[in-house]
């Protein structure tokens, strides 16, 4: 008598989609922090950095509170701080979009899957994409 663990396809689809969401979250955590207030902090810093760059990297950066304060505490110049913030944001846009695109593709593939093998193939493709990011 073969020993078989089975499930209705719909349940497997739901479980696989939940795993995709969880893994996407783990992948994002390699690039962003989720500590309280951090998201608002990053948003404010980026806005400040973009304004500082748009103003032509003024020597007097005192009007750009986030840039100036971080520069003071890190012994970096305001230019370095602003460029670093923008580079980090750009990296996140690239990686975040890649994760989201792969996540959506995997969830669609799982939703239309008609076999367990199709579900596993979609999951494994997603796993490969996020692992290589």
């Amino acid at each position: 008598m073969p020993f078989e663990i089975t499930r209705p396809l719909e349940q497997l689809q739901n479980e696989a989609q939940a795993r995709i969401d969880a893994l996407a979250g783990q992948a994002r955590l390699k690039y962003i922090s989720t500590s309280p207030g951090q998201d608002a902090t990053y948003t404010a810093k980026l806005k400040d950095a973009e304004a500082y760059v748009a103003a032509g990297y003024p020597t007097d950066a005192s009007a750009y509170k986030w840039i100036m304060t971080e520069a003071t505490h890190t012994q970096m110049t305001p230019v370095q701080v602003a460029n670093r913030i923008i580079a980090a944001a750009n990296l996140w846009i690239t990686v975040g979009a890649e994760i989201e695109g792969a996540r959506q593709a995997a969830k669609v593939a799982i939703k239309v899957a008609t076999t367990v093998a199709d579900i596993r193939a979609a999951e494994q493709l997603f796993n490969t994409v996020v692992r290589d990011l």
Partner: protein
Amino acid sequence: MMQVELTFYDPAGEIMCVYSGQNPEGQTEALSEYAWVEGHYECGTHYILAGEPVERPTQPTALDKTDLVADGVDVVVIAHAPSNAAFTAQNLETGERIGGLISGTDTFSTVVPGMWLLRVEKFPYLPWEETINAV
């Protein structure tokens, strides 16, 4: 009084308990449904065969692989299991479990990914265990 150790066992030779003390007569009376031998033997390593303690043998049970595609089609082959042994497969993450009797060769498949602990038990063999990864 002398310290005495007695190992009690059932008719199959499986060790039930070990007595260590100075009143062996009281114990043999209290555990009269069991036979006994002198000495201290653990059930995890020994059993009693024809009145003599012997080591429990290892099982010949074996798998053909330890990685499995969790698609319900790919199977792990469990071979050389003792006749009418108890088989269980347990998901180490969720605790989900399946079980039944196994003899010789059989298969295990799953649609649930994760680490699965396969276990075969048949006295007097030592329990056999192997973990497989279903992805």
